[in-house]
């Protein structure tokens, strides 16, 4: 009887250990598989000329990642510019302004929206938001912002329901609930004692929020923002529907272009040559490294504070 116990214990310990270590195996395998498969593209084009070349031509078997990387960079940055202030507003509202009986329902609503799959956001952008942007926003831009000197041309567009702008807005709407939930948790870590001390010294509510709470949870908020950027940079479906998938550099906010994820999603299964496929592995490898760096960075800021 005793022996059976020892056997089962031994078995359970080692099998559960295997699955825990399996995670390390997967991350290592990811790195290795992406590297090995992108090696041909690295050898053929050279890493730096790959990321600085804007030629993406399956017909001539010549590939460069610049267009996709710039598309990814721009959609991520523009969506962050739209989403982060709104998300911070929601977080401040939920933690400090909102009456107590509304906190839970609004909080849950936001978390549920963060759970909606990204393919739904992309789909909604294609069939609902895109046409609205084409009908209202773009004529508005053409009538106002385009008239501005120098920067005006960057807002010009013609019948663009799918564009860099649409993709960034959809992406922003998608990451708002995610970022809001994270920054709310980050703001919540401020001890009540500190807030009460600020009020006792005669600080207004806004001063308490901006000078006490923000300062206290600065690290955690930066972490939350970085993790949201990581989410935006690797998002595929919300962008693929509405970016236009054109292998050309965007000339304005309203022009169609592509991103790393959209290129991979659209062309991976159609790759006709080995070099073509390898170039897409290389794009995926770069994306993997970028998002991993963002996650590690956010962990250094965020988790240290929240876990303490």
């Amino acid at each position: 009887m005793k022996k059976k116990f020892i056997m089962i214990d031994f078995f359970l310990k080692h099998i559960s250990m295997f699955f825990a270590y399996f995670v390390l195996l997967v991350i290592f395998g990811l790195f290795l598989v992406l590297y090995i498969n992108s090696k041909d593209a690295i050898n053929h084009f050279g890493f730096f000329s790959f990321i600085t070349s804007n030629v993406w031509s399956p017909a001539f078997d010549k590939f460069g990642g610049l267009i996709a990387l710039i598309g990814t960079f721009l959609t991520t940055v523009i969506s962050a510019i739209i989403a982060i202030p709104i998300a911070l507003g929601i977080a401040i509202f939920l933690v400090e302004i909102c009456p107590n009986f509304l906190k839970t329902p609004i909080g849950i609503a936001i978390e549920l929206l963060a759970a909606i799959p990204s393919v739904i956001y992309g789909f909604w952008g294609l069939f609902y938001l895109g046409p609205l942007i084409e009908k209202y926003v773009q004529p508005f831009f053409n009538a106002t912002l385009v008239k501005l000197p120098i920067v005006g041309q960057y807002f010009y567009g013609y019948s663009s329901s799918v564009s860099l702008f649409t993709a960034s807005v959809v992406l922003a709407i998608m990451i708002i609930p995610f970022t809001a939930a994270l920054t709310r948790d980050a703001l919540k870590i401020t001890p009540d004692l500190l807030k009460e001390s600020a009020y006792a010294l005669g600080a207004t509510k806004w001063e308490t929020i901006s000078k006490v709470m923000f300062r206290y949870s600065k690290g955690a908020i930066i972490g939350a923002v970085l993790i949201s950027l990581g989410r935006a940079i690797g998002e595929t479906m919300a962008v693929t529907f509405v970016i236009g998938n054109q292998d050309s550099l965007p000339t304005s906010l309203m022009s169609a272009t592509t991103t790393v994820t959209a290129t991979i999603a659209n062309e991976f299964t159609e790759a006709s040559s080995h070099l073509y496929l390898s170039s897409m592995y290389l794009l995926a490898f770069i994306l993997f490294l970028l998002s991993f760096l963002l996650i590690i960075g956010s962990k250094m800021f965020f988790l240290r504070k929240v876990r303490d």
Partner: protein
Amino acid sequence: MRKRKIKNYIGLSISTISAFIGLFFLLWIIVSLIEKGFHYVNWSVFTQNAVSPGDEGGGLKFAILGQLEVVSIASLLGIPTGILGGIYLSEYGKDSFLSNVIRNVSDAMTSIPSIIIGIFVYALVVVPMGGFSVLAGSIALALLMMPIVISSIDNILRLVPNELREAAYALGAPKYIVIFKVVAKEAIVGIVSVILLAISRILGETAPLLFTSFNSNFESYKLNKPIATLTVTMYDYAMGPYDSWHHLAWAAAIILTFSVLLFNIASRLFSYWRFRR
């Protein structure tokens, strides 16, 4: 004093306004989705298969069943292994250096772009097997599930008070009995909540399925054959040229949104129940 008060009002109003802008957008999505899509959901969507392109009618039976198959197999692969991994971290590894490394890596893996997991499985499963398959799609989703399950199970089991374990040990129970009959029993509601959450997280995944289970027009549920799933079908139909396809895509969007929300809410109810107890 006055200046500070004005600043206070401006700051608070800006946050409140941005909160309402955000909430408006989010409500808008749900409302417009229901308003434009709901009437495309009817009985034949669930019972019929696709008709020839461009013809009105037809349904998503194969895609719905395909989605169920891929997600079920992924859950069978991802959940038990994830639970075991979580058990190791909380019951055996505890605070050792390597366990903390695994915790961090597993946390980080939940944020890796899912399309990259798709490519990884393409290289490791699809290429050696010689084609897209249900199995490849399920493995991709399972790999997405596993780190979520590991991290949450670890967190939940660590909340179980040590006194319970000590009491069981004192009665002479071997470790596996302590884990399964004491620790897991205490945390069972939380474990169910984690399982539901993990399913809701992969239910709507599209990108990792694009290069693994792919899509198919022939109704076949064999493990080594490609299969239609709701998400990929929705993508293909939305990008396609026919109105009838777009209508089915709207129906798919509604079905998908509500099933994800259903699992998510169920998971929340369980975790609420856990804290109440």
